[in-house]
């Protein structure tokens, strides 16, 4: 299964990915429409000690957000592996349990204040918009393992567990 992998070293914080994300989620798939409708981005680029760090959902194997979802809206598609609270039979109520549960802080409140917002990996699009737009190759959509995925994951885990 392909995943979006981040090479932090390559990110220079240009925010192109956030614009592309908004555009891809606007009605007409354009940046103009996204700006007009204030379509929020589902990827964040955060400043960390003076360095830009892109943050987004990893579509976890065992997503804590899915366990936490009391409405049943947040589901992981067994075929595509995509975790999303949109387009399922159950609708999101905006209870924020997923925000509380996500260890990566990848779920946010939609500016409408009513639902949770997260990456849906551009549903069905061959390459997610953020990846496609990144001029620095900091984001890549690859089979896990091709990338230095394990290494990246390991450092992250060791930081988290303090080991």
């Amino acid at each position, binding site marked *: 299964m392909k995943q979006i992998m981040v090479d*932090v070293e390559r990110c220079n914080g240009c925010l192109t990915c956030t614009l592309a994300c908004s555009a891809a989620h606007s009605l007409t798939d354009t940046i103009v429409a996204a700006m007009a409708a204030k379509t929020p981005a589902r990827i964040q680029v955060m400043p*960390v000690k003076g360095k830009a760090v892109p*943050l987004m959902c990893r579509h976890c194997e065992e997503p804590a957000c*899915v366990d936490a979802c009391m409405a049943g809206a947040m589901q992981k598609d067994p075929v595509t592996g995509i975790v999303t609270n949109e387009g399922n039979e159950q609708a999101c109520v905006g209870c*924020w349990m997923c925000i509380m549960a996500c260890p990566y802080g990848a779920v946010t409140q939609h500016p409408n204040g009513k639902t949770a917002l997260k990456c849906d990996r551009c549903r069905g699009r061959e390459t997610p918009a953020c990846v496609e737009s990144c001029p620095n190759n900091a984001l890549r959509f690859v089979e896990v393992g091709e990338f230095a995925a394990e290494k990246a994951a390991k450092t992250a885990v060791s930081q988290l567990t303090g080991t």
Partner: protein
Amino acid sequence: MHHVIIGNSAAGIRAAETLRYLDPVSDISIISEEDIHAYSRCLLPDFLAGSRSEREIYFRPEDFYARNRIQTIFGSKAESIDPEQRRVLLDDGTRLSYDKLLIATGASSTLPPIPGIDSPNVFGLRHLRDARNILKACAKARRVVIIGAGFVGLEAATALYRQGLEVTVVEKMPQILPQQFDTLAADIILQDIQAEGIRFVLGRGIKEISPPSVWGRIFSNPGCGVVLEDGTRLKAEVIIIAAGTRPNVEVALSAGIKINRGIPVNDFMETNVPHIYAAGDVAETKDVVTGQTGLTPIWPNASAQGRTAAYNMVGHPKAYGGMIGLQNAVEFRDVPAIAMGISRPAGADYQVLSSYHPEKNRYKKLVLLNDRLVGMILVGDIHQAGIYGALIKNKASVSRFNDLLLRDDFSYGYLAT
């Protein structure tokens, strides 16, 4: 192989779907006393408020059981378990054989033993039938008194207020949400709800409920009286008791399963009786923060426990990672808030970092013990809750970024780089 699950809610459903995912061929049956598709109790307040219909509180699609080939035995109560014969006895006399059994019977509302508690129009709020009865009673009511300013009480209060009723909440502790929030956080949330128009009586418990008097009934004034400890009387046509829950352990008792308050289970969600597992509000598990075994009656934990139980039931040993027992997200009106772990530390060993911006209704409190985050409260801005939660859960040392923790831009990035 026949997997039998008692309870059709967070833990039971998550277990059932995981069982089916892991094991395409075995038989799976769910027994439920409630004769209805799996619905989310957490959305009962939305149902009370009229913002969601019965169908809209279902938390799985309508074809869930068919698609997952799950046999449903609804409207039946499991009366007892015979662990020798591996059979469950239902209230209609049916016996059901199992290879593995999951007890996911959840909890019930506790009703305090005060005079008049069995008067008409006094309700708990746990089941859809409670919510239906409350709405029916409210159709002819003007005033509602809610006993208990915990999470469920406040949810019920805001829901019924939205239906146009006059709502008074009575709480015997001096603050609202006493289990999760400290006084400052509770105060911010209280002001937010009060601004809506809901009345509060804090620091006073109730003594009795006096049923409508004969004259009252004759002159069609059917209100009950709620008598507080200090003698104050409040009149209401509908009274909702939201004074906590107790685990449904009766059926486990019949099998000789060990019980504390709930059913203690090991890391594999096993009870002390072979082939019988427990998960959800009925189970006692180890809290990752306090290390103590106890009830953790919240939805995410019930789901995670059900999912873990399923792995072990099919013979893939999987340990329950442990969850933070106390965690809750609330938003009654405008101000979202989340509390987790040890949010009100007692003792000098704890270090507390906090920031408070009254003008923005923002409050953040982080509780540390020996360089590890053990609890937190976020009010107003909750976007970092998950990161703090992960730090708490993983007992990560935060000494490296102690001074950055409180910042509004503290993110996962600090951990990953």
